[in-house]
């Protein structure tokens, strides 16, 4: 058993942390988020050119440095710490994770590593809830082409994206794992309706309407109807990375809250001297530490067989969803009125933590996935006899 980072991983962490501390200004990034562009392109360029984080987890054949889950964890945690809005997990971990499992995506992946390609994964739909394999959008063959019909909801990172990674059903029922196909499309697509909006956590997303959109045969990636085999592991990787991002956010939030409680004075003393608040901050600390452990659990089990991998990432998401709520809410509470504003960092982190609570499925969703993957005791299997 070993929880230590290699020298290269430490270097990756430290150089990213230093760069973000020097160059990533919270106020500037919020301004960019509120703008039409929705982000700072120069930040993404630096991620690709100066820091090399976009290729850190992608294979060497496409220009990456061949790292794995631990590299993704290290990167996502630092991005969370600095509340980076640029969509690393969506584009690189989820988008890249799907693509690197499918043939024919090599050039696109090279673009991801270079920072010129950004992928917006369009999985959820108006009637899917948080279930990624609930796909009602259909794709049917039309001569050599495909025709896509349906709708996608809350597709993250759209104004920044160059490509859409869409699921569409080529056979089966709405919630079947079989029959899901993956299409990679340019964002500018004739016939595609895009409704863009900001999200509560200072990012951007869009709803897509596909009204018989004609796409060429090579838009289909991998085998028809077998998309879930690439999506399922990539989603678990994204869950692990999201957990790490949450840990980064929560570490900042806890540190800020403790610091504030030492500075803010009421009744002639620092509010941090009130035992009621000390216990609350200790409980926040316990939630953060459990989330750190959950982050390792998810990250280190990504290589396990599918059921074990899924159980670990669901366990991590349940832990982090609970922690994100508790830590976020109490950080606001302990800041009093100041916690309710956009003046301090805390308000912005609280919004991101709220989004993370639900992103890739809320706690109940993952509790039920965890339960369904947990073997029943033998007596229960036997039933009543």
């Amino acid at each position, binding site marked *: 058993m070993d929880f230590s980072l290699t020298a290269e991983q430490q270097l990756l962490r430290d150089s990213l942390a230093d760069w973000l501390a020097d160059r990533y200004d919270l106020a500037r990034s919020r301004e960019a988020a509120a703008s039409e562009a929705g982000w700072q392109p120069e930040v993404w360029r630096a991620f690709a050119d100066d820091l090399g984080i976009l290729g850190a987890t992608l294979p060497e054949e496409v220009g990456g440095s061949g790292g794995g889950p631990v590299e993704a964890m290290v990167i996502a945690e630092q991005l969370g710490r600095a509340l980076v809005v640029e969509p690393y997990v969506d584009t690189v971990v989820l988008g890249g994770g799907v693509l690197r499992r499918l043939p024919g995506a090599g050039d696109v992946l090279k673009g991801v590593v270079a920072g010129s390609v950004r992928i917006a994964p369009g999985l959820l739909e108006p009637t899917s809830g948080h279930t990624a394999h609930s796909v009602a959008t259909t794709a049917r063959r039309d001569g050599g082409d495909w025709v896509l019909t349906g709708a996608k*909801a809350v597709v993250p990172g759209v104004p920044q994206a160059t490509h859409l990674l869409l699921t569409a059903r080529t056979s089966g029922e709405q919630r079947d794992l079989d029959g899901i196909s993956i299409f990679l499309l340019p964002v500018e697509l004739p016939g595609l309706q895009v409704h863009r909006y900001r999200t509560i956590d200072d990012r951007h997303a869009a709803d897509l309407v596909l009204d018989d959109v004609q796409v060429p045969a090579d838009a289909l990636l991998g085998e028809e109807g077998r998309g879930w085999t690439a999506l399922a592991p990539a989603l678990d990787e994204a869950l692990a990375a999201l957990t790490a991002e949450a840990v980064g956010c929560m570490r900042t939030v806890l540190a800020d809250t403790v610091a504030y409680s030492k500075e803010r004075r009421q009744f002639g003393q620092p509010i941090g001297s009130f035992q009621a608040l000390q216990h609350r901050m200790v409980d926040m600390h316990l939630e953060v530490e459990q989330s750190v452990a959950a982050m390792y659990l998810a990250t280190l089990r990504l290589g396990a067989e599918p059921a074990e991998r899924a159980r670990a990432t669901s366990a991590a998401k349940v832990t982090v969803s609970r922690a994100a709520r508790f830590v976020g809410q109490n950080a606001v509470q302990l800041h009093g009125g100041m916690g309710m504003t956009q003046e301090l960092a805390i308000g912005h982190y609280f919004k991101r933590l709220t989004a993370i609570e639900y992103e890739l499925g809320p706690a109940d969703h993952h509790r039920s996935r965890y339960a369904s993957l947990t073997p029943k005791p033998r007596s229960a299997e036997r039933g009543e006899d």
Partner: protein
Amino acid sequence: MDLEWSAADLAFRDEVRAFLDERLTPDLRRAGRLMTSVYADHEASMRWQAILHERGWAAPAWPVEYGGCDWTVTQHYLFSRESILAGAPPLSPMGISMVAHVLIEFGTPEQKEFFLPRILTGEVFFCQGYSEPEAGSDLAALSMTAEADGDDLVCTGSKIWTTHAGEANWMFCLVRTSRAAKKQQGITFLLIDMSSPGIEVRPLVMTSGEQIQNQEFFDHVRVPKANVVGEIDDGWTVAKYLLEFERGGSAAAPKLQIMADEVARAAAGQPGPDGRPLLESPAFAAKLADARIRIDVLEVLEFRVLSAAAGGRNPGTASSMLKILGTELSQTLTELLLEAAGPRGRAYQPHATRPGGPLAGFAPPADGYVSGEEWQAVAPLRYFNDRAGTIYAGSNEIQRNILAKAALGL
């Protein structure tokens, strides 16, 4: 002993219902239904106040001689319950439910004559200037000074978190008129005309993007001594009296029941983890049932406090208890609504709601597009704004401190 309404109560309820049916326009109901916090859209709320005033129901809790209603405690309860049920935008509490009671108890005849009728018509709209940057939970530490100069008090300092200071033309506030050994002494309760020279109002941007709260800066603002309520240096007595109306007063259970119904309606139309409606998901159903059970119990708790009040007994520590239970339940329900909103709950689309104030740096889409339904746009904003419930009107930590002392003798 029973929990039923009398025939007279039911007849009264029907009368209120008929009135609401007739006078609440669809637009006013929308303003009530799409609220993102406890603050209704200002214009809609004032419009509704005018309609209520016409009927004599704008300030039912006031003594009849000033325009109140001769109602039983149950009738007050039924009126507020029916209003919420019908989706009426709530009236701003600062004038009608707060400072008016203080004026009635402590005001000079001139103050009563000037302010009370104008509060009723909405011509005078009050904001509450209690909190200061360095005096929040520790309100008595306030330091905005008011120095006597002839017939005036000259005020210098700052107030913060003032709800609707931008809309208000009057502020009731606490100022320091002298420094005594005990910080509660030397405070004065003062009414300030917001158009007086030397006042700057700066809106604050809250997490939701809404600008409802403000900070004000007072630079040698002259206020006639005639605007002091009660005695100079004895404002703490007045403030404590007002606090009883801020914390207690109305019942929370009806509002919470409606929120729970909203959650149920929302969850019935959204898919849960197994594909069936979220409302049928055992985990979600259990959470909602738990919230409803707490509301049922809170309602009886509130009835008990109300009937004690009707019997002339002081609610005592009950207002702290009800404040804690009501605000924390409300937060639970906003969590459930946000969960029910599903992935759409992440979209920031205040243009589909009726917030209680202007929005900072938000441009609605040209085509008015809304992702999902309006309630899904409301859900995250309500969740953010409702965090304030456990902070204002005496934070829940402060209420627990009060209960530890007063209820448990610790």
